[in-house]
C-alpha cells in the first residue's frame, strides 16, 4: 500500500507546491489537502477539504482517511500578514490540534513533517555566525511571531517524546525567495527598494523556493526524521541582496526604526515586519551540514535564490504577469477527479525517476538522490 498523506495549508504556496510534488510520485496512494481558502496550484489527484484554521475537524479527518503522514506547512512566518491573534490561532492552536489528532490512541499516523522557520533562532547581536540545529537562542524570543514559533516547536518536541513510534521531521527554513513565492522581501524587491537599517549591512541567507519544496518532498518520501536547517549555501550582505535584486537601498534610521518606517509601510511603499527589521540589523546564518549529510543537494545558493527572484521581477516588468492565475472551481475539480465520464488511463502515475523533468515547478531543480 502506498503512502496516504495529509497536507495542511493547501491553499498557500507551500501546501500547493508540496502537494503537486507528492501527488506525482507513484509511491503515494492518496494526497489530501486542508486549507481555509481555495488552492492556488492546479492539482491532479489531490483531494481538498476546506476547514477552519484551528483544525477542530482534523481528528475526524485523520481517523476517517487513515493517513500515515501529516505535512504541516501552514505556519505563518510573516507577522504583517495578519493580526497577532489570528497568527497565534493558526500557529499555536492549529499545531496543538494537529498533533493531538496525530497522537490519538489508535492513530494511523507514522510521520509528521513540520515546516518551521529559522526565525526560532532570532537575530541578536550575541548570535554565533552559524546556528546549528541544537544551538540555543542567545536571547529569549520577544516578538509574538517568534514566540509562537518557539511554542510550536515545543509542542512538536513534546509530541516526539511521547510518540516514539512516529517519525517527526522539523525543517527550519531560512528566508525563501524564488519565482513564485511572495514574501515581504520579494514584495520590496518588486517595488525596486530594499529597506535597510542605516549603518547596518548584516549577512543573511536565503533558500530557493524549488529547493525548499524539494526538501519537504525528500523528507516525506525518505521518512527522514529529526530537525534540520534548510538554507542555500553562503550568506550575503543586505547591500548585495539589493544589487542582485536590482533594487535601491532605502536606509531607515537605526533609532526609532519602527516609528520611522510605519508611515512608509502604511503608504504601501515598503514591507518591514518586525522580524525582518531585526534580521536587517543583525543578520542570521544557519548551518545546513546536517541536512546535506542525509544526501540532500541544493540546486542553488543564497545569492542564486535572490537572482531567481530578480529574474522573475524583470520578466514581470517586461511582459506583465506572464503566468495565467489558476482559479479553483470545486465543481470542475470534482468532475475531473471523480466523474465516471472521465476516461482514466491505466498507468496515470509517473515513477520518481521518469518525472524528474516534469514535476510541477521543480522542472529546473536538480534532483536529490531518493532516500527510500
Amino acid at each position, binding site marked *: 500500500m502506498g503512502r496516504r498523506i495529509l497536507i495542511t495549508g493547501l491553499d498557500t504556496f507551500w501546501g500547493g507546491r508540496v502537494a503537486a510534488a507528492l501527488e506525482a510520485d507513484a509511491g503515494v496512494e492518496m494526497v489530501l489537502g486542508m486549507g481555509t481558502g481555495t488552492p492556488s496550484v492546479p492539482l491532479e489527484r489531490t483531494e481538498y477539504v476546506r476547514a477552519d484554521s484551528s483544525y477542530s475537524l482534523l481528528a475526524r479527518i485523520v481517523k476517517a482517511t487513515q493517513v500515515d503522514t501529516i505535512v504541516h506547512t501552514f505556519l505563518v512566518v510573516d507577522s504583517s500578514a495578519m493580526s497577532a491573534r489570528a497568527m497565534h490561532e493558526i500557529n499555536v492552536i492549529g499545531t496543538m490540534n494537529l498533533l493531538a489528532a496525530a497522537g490519538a490512541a489508535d492513530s494511523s499516523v507514522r510521520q509528521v513533517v513540520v515546516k518551521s522557520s529559522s526565525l526560532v533562532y532570532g537575530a541578536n*547581536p*550575541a*548570535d*554565533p*555566525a*552559524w546556528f*546549528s540545529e541544537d*544551538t540555543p537562542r542567545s536571547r529569549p524570543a520577544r516578538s509574538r511571531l517568534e514566540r509562537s514559533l518557539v511554542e510550536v516547536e515545543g509542542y512538536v518536541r513534546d509530541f516526539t517524546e511521547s510518540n516514539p513510534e512516529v517519525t517527526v521531521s522539523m525543517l527550519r527554513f531560512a528566508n525563501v525567495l524564488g519565482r513564485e513565492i511572495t514574501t515581504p522581501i520579494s514584495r520590496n524587491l518588486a517595488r525596486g527598494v530594499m529597506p535597510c*537599517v*542605516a*549603518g*547596518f*549591512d*548584516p*549577512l543573511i541567507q536565503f533558500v530557493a523556493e524549488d529547493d525548499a519544496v524539494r526538501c519537504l518532498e525528500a523528507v516525506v518520501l525518505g521518512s527522514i526524521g529529526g530537525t534540520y536547517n534548510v538554507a542555500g*549555501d*553562503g*550568506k*550575503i*550582505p543586505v*547591500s*548585495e541582496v539589493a*544589487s*542582485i535584486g536590482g533594487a535601491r537601498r532605502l536606509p531607515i534610521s*537605526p533609532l526609532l526604526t519602527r516609528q520611522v518606517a510605519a508611515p512608509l509601510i502604511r503608504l504601501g511603499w515598503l514591507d518591514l515586519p518586525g522580524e525582518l527589521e531585526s534580521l536587517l540589523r*543583525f543578520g542570521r*546564518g544557519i548551518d545546513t551540514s546536517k541536512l546535506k549529510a542525509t544526501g540532500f543537494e541544493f540546486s*542553488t*545558493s543564497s*545569492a*542564486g535564490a*535572490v*537572482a531567481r527572484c530578480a529574474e522573475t521581477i524583470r520578466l514581470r516588468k517586461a511582459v506583465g504577469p506572464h503566468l495565467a492565475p489558476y482559479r479553483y472551481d470545486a465543481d470542475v475539480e470534482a468532475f475531473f477527479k471523480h466523474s465516471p465520464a472521465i476516461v482514466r488511463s491505466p498507468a496515470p502515475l509517473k515513477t520518481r525517476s521518469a518525472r524528474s523533468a516534469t514535476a510541477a515547478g521543480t522542472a529546473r531543480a536538480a534532483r536529490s538522490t531518493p532516500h527510500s
Partner: protein
Amino acid sequence: MVPDPARGELRPDPARRSDVDEWGRSERWRHVARQVGGCYYRRWFRVEWEGIANVPLEGGALLVANHGGALPADAPMIMQGIEEQLGRPVYGLADSFFRTVPVVGTIWSRAGGVPAHPDNAQRILSDHGRLALVFPEGEKGPSKLVSERYRLRRFGRGGFVEAAMRAGVPIVPIAVVGSEESMPILLRLPRAARALKLPYLPVTVNHLLLGPVLGSIVHLPAKFRFRVLEPVTFDVEPGLAKYERGRVMDEAEAIRQHLQEALYDMLSQRRSIWFG
C-alpha cells in the same frame, strides 16, 4: 587564492556581486583598511615585533594579547603586522557590542572583526585552520585607568583556553607595549555610559589635548612594541563539549602570568614612551 572546500571556502558563486565572506570580511575592505592602517603602523606607532616567528605559518592558532587604551589600537595593528609579514589573514574576535553600533559595526566586520562566540572560534580555528586574535581581558582591559596600566585584569572565565583546547590549536601570547599610552584614561563616567548604553565612557588625555571630538578618535603617537611568546599547546583531546574547569583556569592563569612577566620585562627596557 584557490578555494578549498575543506576549509569552508565555497566554490565561486556566479550570482555573487561582492567579496564579503561568511564572516562579513571583505578583502577589498581589508585592502583599504591596510592602506590606512599602514600609515599608522609605520609612521604613527612605528610598530616593532619581537619573535614573530612564533606565529605558526599554517594551521589554526589563537593569538592572545593584552588590551589597552580607551579606543584600543592594538587589535588593528596586530592584524596589520601579521597580514603584512606572514601574509595570513587574522580574524579579530571581539565583544558583540560592536555589532550594535551602526556604521562602526559594519566597518569592523568588513575589516575582519568577528563576534567572540565559542562556535565562531571553533569554526575559524579548527574548521578553517586560520588565525584568530582575542583579548581575554575583554572590556576590562581598555577601560582601566592610566594609573593601572599594564596590570593585566582577570582573563575572563578562561573561555579562550577552552576554545583553543576544543579546536586543538596552540595559543600564541602577544605582549603589547604602547597601546596603553596611546589613549590613556584619566577617569570613567559610569552613569553617562549606562545612559548611552556604552560599555564604558572615558575621559582621556587625548580629550584634554584635542577636545571632545578629535580626542575620541586621534591616538597619541606612542611607540608600539609587540613581543610574541612561545606558543602554548595543550595535551588534551580536541572536540569535546567540556573541559575540566580547574585545568582551564590554571592554563588561563599561567598564560596571564607569562604575559604579565613579559610586559614587566619590556617596560623595564623601555627608555621612552614615544621612542621606545
